[in-house]
């Protein structure tokens, strides 16, 4: 019973923390766009939080540059359980065009366990919203 209540609440209150691990800005802007009037993710209970300590979902964009590695791991460690990582955009999923660059690791899953991959270059806010909703349903 308690379990069901908690699950109900978790599905309806996903707070995001966004980290750009070296992406081109496109996905990041589209993610921010999700909060604005046309898409308004607050309907789904989604809030963008400022501190890793408050967040449930870590939304990562970018192909993980060598310099982003440390901050990314630190942010993930600071988040309280339960937590999920979402790879937003083709770069974050696989490295995309930057896969072989000398300063790029190529994909969030080289570092962190990824719960959802959202491909697209950049992915549209609709795609992000649908994928997040799908992730929440599956919890």
């Amino acid at each position, binding site marked *: 019973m308690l379990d069901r209540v908690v699950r109900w*609440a978790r599905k309806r*209150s996903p707070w995001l923390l966004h980290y750009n691990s070296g992406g081109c800005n496109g996905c990041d802007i589209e993610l921010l766009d999700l909060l604005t009037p046309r898409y308004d993710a*607050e309907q789904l209970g989604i809030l963008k939080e*400022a501190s890793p*300590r408050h967040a449930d979902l870590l939304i990562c964009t970018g192909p993980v540059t060598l310099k982003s590695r440390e901050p990314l791991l630190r942010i993930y460690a600071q988040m309280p359980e339960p937590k999920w990582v979402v790879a937003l955009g083709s770069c974050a999923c696989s490295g995309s065009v930057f896969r072989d660059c000398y300063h790029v690791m190529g994909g969030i899953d080289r570092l962190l366990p990824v719960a959802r991959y959202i491909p697209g270059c950049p992915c549209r806010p609709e795609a992000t919203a649908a994928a997040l909703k799908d992730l929440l349903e599956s919890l």
Partner: protein
Amino acid sequence: MHVLQALGEMLIFPGALYGLIISMLLAWLDRKLVAVMQGRVGPPIYQPLADTIKLFAKEDLDTEGVNPTLAGLLPVVALACTMTAALLVPVGNHAVISFQGDLVIALFLLSLPTLALFMAGWIVPSVYNVVGGNRTLLQYFAYEVPLLLGLAAPAAFSQSWRITDLMARQAGYRWFVLGMPLGFLVSSMGLIGKLERVPLDAPHAKAEVGAGPLTEYSGRKLAFWRLTSWLQTVVGINLMIAVYLGGADRMWRYWGLGTYLLKMLAYLGGLALVQVLYARYRVDQVSRISWRVLVPLGLLQLLVTVWLGA
């Protein structure tokens, strides 16, 4: 019977349970109103409840270098103080406890959570928490005086510091807001500062200091702090309704509650409108405006009131 009634008042209405429900409803309505004014849809009605349950079910990380007992105790103390204040301030025209000077005690109880919040920020060895905590304290010095001055005018006029007396003086729609608009505005600004709402939300301005004093807190502690802040909003609005808007006007038998709820919505709507229309003040701008504008205006109101009343 007496004991049961007292218990009921403390735990159910207008005490803890009612306080929690109404504060969550108000928190939702606040977000919803702001969203609608910004051209968005806004969160569903159960949002604050879902947020709270989720936070309680989340891992509660202990921050390095912080005494866990103190960190856990501060939000509980803050919530307890706010709940006690809620018992002193009439809901509609129903006050659980009422005595001469309860207005001052209520204000004192309401300022304790602010100090606890400052402490909560100060004990964490993280820059954002400390800077946020400092700002909380700086702002506390700025808004507390206007808030007090603004509420002093009706008290001086009624020659009583008892909230129910103030309400009684306003019976028959002679609301103090009509006679003392300046005092109402000054104390409303003070209240916005106390609740750390836009435009006086510098202590937890996201773009500057993350989540301010609460940056490093997670899970249960964060949930307690959020509940405190929501309940403070309710108590603050109740206080303004009681002191300036005549409490619950009894038009006919059942209308008291209705007018009270209407006033509550209107006041909340006003707060939301201010949030939508203004950019944030810097902390130094807050103190400057407070001491150069709000305090003189509050004093003026007080003098005029005393002079007219005499």
